[in-house]
């Protein structure tokens, strides 16, 4: 018997799971069109690598992520790429995003499949690469690319690999049915992941309200070292952090990842996907989705191709359109409402609830918080939800953050029990969003200030250098003048003693003096700037001058117009004109400088 720990808080909502477990998993078949969002997981969106009109085969890669965190998207069946456009995608905001639309040709023709005969003969990195190429991302919650997750930081050894089959949300039975019907594939996938990670312990955690799944897995794990941990039914046991606490007694450090304490959690559906990829060569193109709720006649689980529109699945389950009031994607505790049934199933979609108005009624009006503390009693993260609520509502975000707002997992247990029916989670999301926005703005302001300061400094430095150069030049010129004068005097004194040789020597000396002055002038500057100094880019400077002049003209034009119309921005424009005037002057100066320098250049070069 595996030792179990308890986590604080938690609730026991009505399970409503029996509706969707009455029938075995049904195959949803191929809909008329498949919509494949380019972003189906946390990380970078994929880029389409097919073009409109192209025919693709089932399992063919049609979009990939070349840069950054992400996995490719594959064609769920054979057909023609109809378009690549922005369409509604499953997202709490109801937004549109880039999707590839595939029109199936009905032939369902596979690309040649290459199963791996024995993955043990491969390098671990190669297997991870296969998993990435198979488009596998976590199928339980957030959808993190599986190959990245399976490669924990070098200094973190994973001792315990947990397969999450808790499925604590009411209504959802996708994992339950997967465990009942695909237990062998789950174990096979788990073995592949265990081979990659080499943990000391493999545990499958299941809530005790799924006896059939427990039995199926008991049979499948017989003779292996995989532990089967049957845990008490309590929401949110299936939360990664809570499941880890139940099975290991350890807590994931705040802001850290499970690998920090040597634990990793994978979903049972992900294990099936890994097994299919390795042993059959099939990429992730379908998943099990629960379609349930009182507004469908035949609730159950469907094996649906990724990209299948929700409407298609609802129809298959016998949707009664006049009854449905609220459409929830995910569970009733953490799922979000859909605005349209046109959204497709993606790799993380586990459940659609078509609920009637009596089934999931609108919450009663919000009453004042009486600080009863029920929320703190059920909070699995041991937060003080009502304090967070007060601070979030009063926009005292600093205090909310101090009370660990960002540790909130938004499980909704607090809202579930609140006697005043305050939508607490909504307040936390709001506060988190506001804090993120503030941080981003702070960062932007900091950067802008730094840039401004750097520019000020650079301009000042350039001004000083220019001044310095001017002084040096003047000094050298004065010296040369003095020397010439002295020589002339000398020559006058010595009469015709000046021969050709001495004249030449004087010239050389003069050139050397100039050169010396120049190198000294160039000294305080960075070496990289030197060549540019030696050869000023006349063209660029002329261009700058022209630009500045044209801008000045435009500004003047605008100023006159504004004056004519007696607009209230005359003052501002006047300032702008003055500024542009300065700029033109500076550009002219720079140009003149450069010309002068260029004129003196052949001489200096000749002396080298």
């Amino acid at each position, binding site marked *: 018997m595996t030792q179990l720990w308890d986590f604080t808080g938690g609730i026991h909502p009505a399970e409503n799971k029996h509706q969707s477990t009455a029938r075995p998993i049904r195959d949803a078949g191929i809909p008329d069109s498949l919509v494949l969002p380019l972003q189906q997981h946390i990380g970078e969106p994929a880029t389409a690598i097919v073009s409109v009109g192209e025919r693709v085969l089932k399992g063919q890669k049609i979009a990939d992520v070349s840069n950054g965190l992400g996995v490719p998207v594959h064609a769920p069946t054979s057909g023609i790429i109809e378009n690549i456009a922005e369409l509604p995608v499953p997202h709490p905001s109801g937004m549109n995003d880039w999707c590839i639309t595939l029109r199936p040709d009905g032939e369902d023709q596979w690309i040649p499949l290459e199963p791996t005969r024995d993955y043990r003969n491969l390098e671990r990195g190669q297997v991870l690469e296969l998993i990435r190429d198979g488009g596998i991302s976590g199928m339980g919650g957030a959808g993190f690319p599986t190959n990245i997750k399976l490669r924990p930081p070098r200094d973190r050894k994973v001792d315990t690999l947990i397969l999450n089959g808790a499925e604590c949300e009411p209504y959802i039975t996708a994992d339950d049915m997967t465990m009942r019907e695909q237990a062998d594939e789950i174990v096979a996938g788990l073995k592949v992941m265990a081979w990659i990670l080499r943990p000391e312990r493999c545990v499958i955690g299941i809530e005790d309200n799924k006896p059939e799944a427990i039995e199926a897995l008991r049979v499948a794990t017989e003779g292996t070292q995989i532990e089967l941990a049957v845990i008490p039914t309590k929401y949110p046991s299936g939360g990664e952090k809570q499941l880890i606490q139940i099975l290991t007694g350890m807590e994931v450090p705040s802001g850290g990842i499970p690998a920090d304490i040597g634990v990793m959690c994978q979903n049972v559906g992900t294990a099936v996907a890994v097994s299919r990829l390795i042993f059959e060569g099939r990429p992730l193109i379908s998943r099990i989705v629960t379609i349930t709720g009182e507004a469908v006649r035949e609730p159950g689980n469907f094996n649906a191709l990724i990209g299948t529109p929700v409407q298609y699945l609802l129809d298959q389950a016998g949707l009664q359109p006049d009854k449905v009031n609220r459409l929830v994607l995910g569970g009733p505790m953490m799922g979000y409402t859909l605005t349209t049934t046109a959204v497709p199933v993606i790799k993380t979609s586990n459940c659609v609830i078509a609920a009637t108005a009596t089934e999931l009624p609108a919450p009663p009006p919000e009453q004042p918080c009486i600080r009863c503390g029920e929320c*703190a009693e059920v909070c699995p993260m041991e937060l003080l939800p009502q304090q967070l609520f007060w601070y979030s509502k009063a926009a005292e975000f600093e205090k909310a953050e101090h009370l660990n707002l960002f540790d909130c997992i938004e499980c909704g247990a607090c809202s579930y029990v609140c006697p005043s029916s305050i939508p607490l989670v909504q307040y936390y999301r709001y506060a988190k969003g506001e804090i993120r926005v503030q941080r981003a703005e702070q960062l932007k302001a900091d950067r802008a200030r730094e840039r401004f300061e750097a520019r000020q400094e650079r301009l000042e430095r350039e001004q000083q250098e220019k001044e310095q150069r001017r002084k040096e030049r003047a000094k050298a010129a004065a010296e040369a003048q003095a020397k010439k004068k002295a020589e002339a005097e000398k020559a006058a004194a010595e009469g015709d003693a000046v021969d050709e040789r001495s004249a030449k020597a004087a010239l050389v000396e003069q050139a050397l003096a100039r050169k010396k002055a120049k190198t000294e002038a160039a000294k305080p500057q960075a070496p990289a700037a030197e060549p540019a100094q030696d050869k000023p880019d006349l063209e660029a400077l002329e261009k700058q001058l022209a630009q500045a002049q044209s801008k000045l003209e435009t500004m003047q034009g605008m100023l006159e117009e504004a004056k004519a119309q007696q607009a209230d921005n005359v003052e501002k424009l006047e300032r702008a004109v003055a500024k542009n005037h300065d700029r033109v002057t500076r550009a002219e100066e720079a140009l003149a400088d450069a010309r002068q320098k260029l004129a003196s250049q052949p001489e200096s070069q000749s002396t080298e």
Partner: protein
Amino acid sequence: MAFAQQSSPHAHHARPTSRVMLWVIIAALPGLFAQTVFFGWGNLINVVWCVALAMACEAAILKLRNKPVAFFLKDNTAAVTGLLLGLSLPQFAPWWVSGIAVMSAIVVAKQLYGGLGSNPFNPAMVGYALVLISFPVAMTTNWAEPALLWDGAPGFSETLGTIASAQQTAVDGWTMATPLDEYKHKIATRTAEEVLAHPTFGDGIARGWEWVNAGFLAGGLLLVLLRIITWHIPIGYLAGLVLMSLAFGNNADQYAPLSLHLLAGGTVLGAFFIATDPVSAATSHQGKLIYGAGIGVLIYLIRTWGSYPDAVAFSVLLMNFAVPFIDHYTPPRTYGHHKARRGVPGRKQG
């Protein structure tokens, strides 16, 4: 199709505030019953009068504040405030004394601070403390004699007449000091044995009072069982009082014994019904223990060395002051953290 848009969670299963308050009222009934049996109709009349007035005041103020009257009245919180005052005021307290207590509780302590959930002080105790200071005579001389074993006990109409009349002349024969008052004033000059011979103490601890406290204890335990209150405040409260009593009150000839502290006054009512008012109490479990213990200790201090025989109201109000401070220093340790983040957030530099 237009679908309802809602933020998660979509399922709710809450015990609404109105039902929580209803349970508090139900839980107070055994104590009220004991009061009626042992001390006559006074408390019952007080309760009815205070509840009615509390609801009326609440409705009037809500109306003035342009708040939905029915919506807030239905939460039963005003009724509970009235009930608590009715239970704790002297049996023969004149109608206008209890009226002033109720009005200051509902109007000043609750609604002027922003209504339900916003009051820093326990409204019922604000009302009680106000009339106790303002009308000390009416508040200390109107306690009924235990009626059960007494032939001349006033009936319903006599009690009602006494409460309703402005003159308080008729009651002299029916009232006496409370056990705590009696003990406190007599022990300075007599031995414990002599003091306890007074009929108010009876054969047990304090005639009638012990049963009233037992009634409130039963109701309080019901509230704990129903998880309407947690055990932390009552236990902290009783532990504070017991420990103080054991530490300082071991000599019965000098100070009231522990049994009297627990069962001869408003101790149990205060522990389960008054100190546990969530709005004005501390929030975390640790905070609740500290808050409760603070009340218990203060009750002992005021009863023993202060000038009031009972001290629940003052102690609760004093600890209400300390609640924000307690809350700052007693947040629970959050999952995944080494220790709790106490105190106020530090100002970030720059």
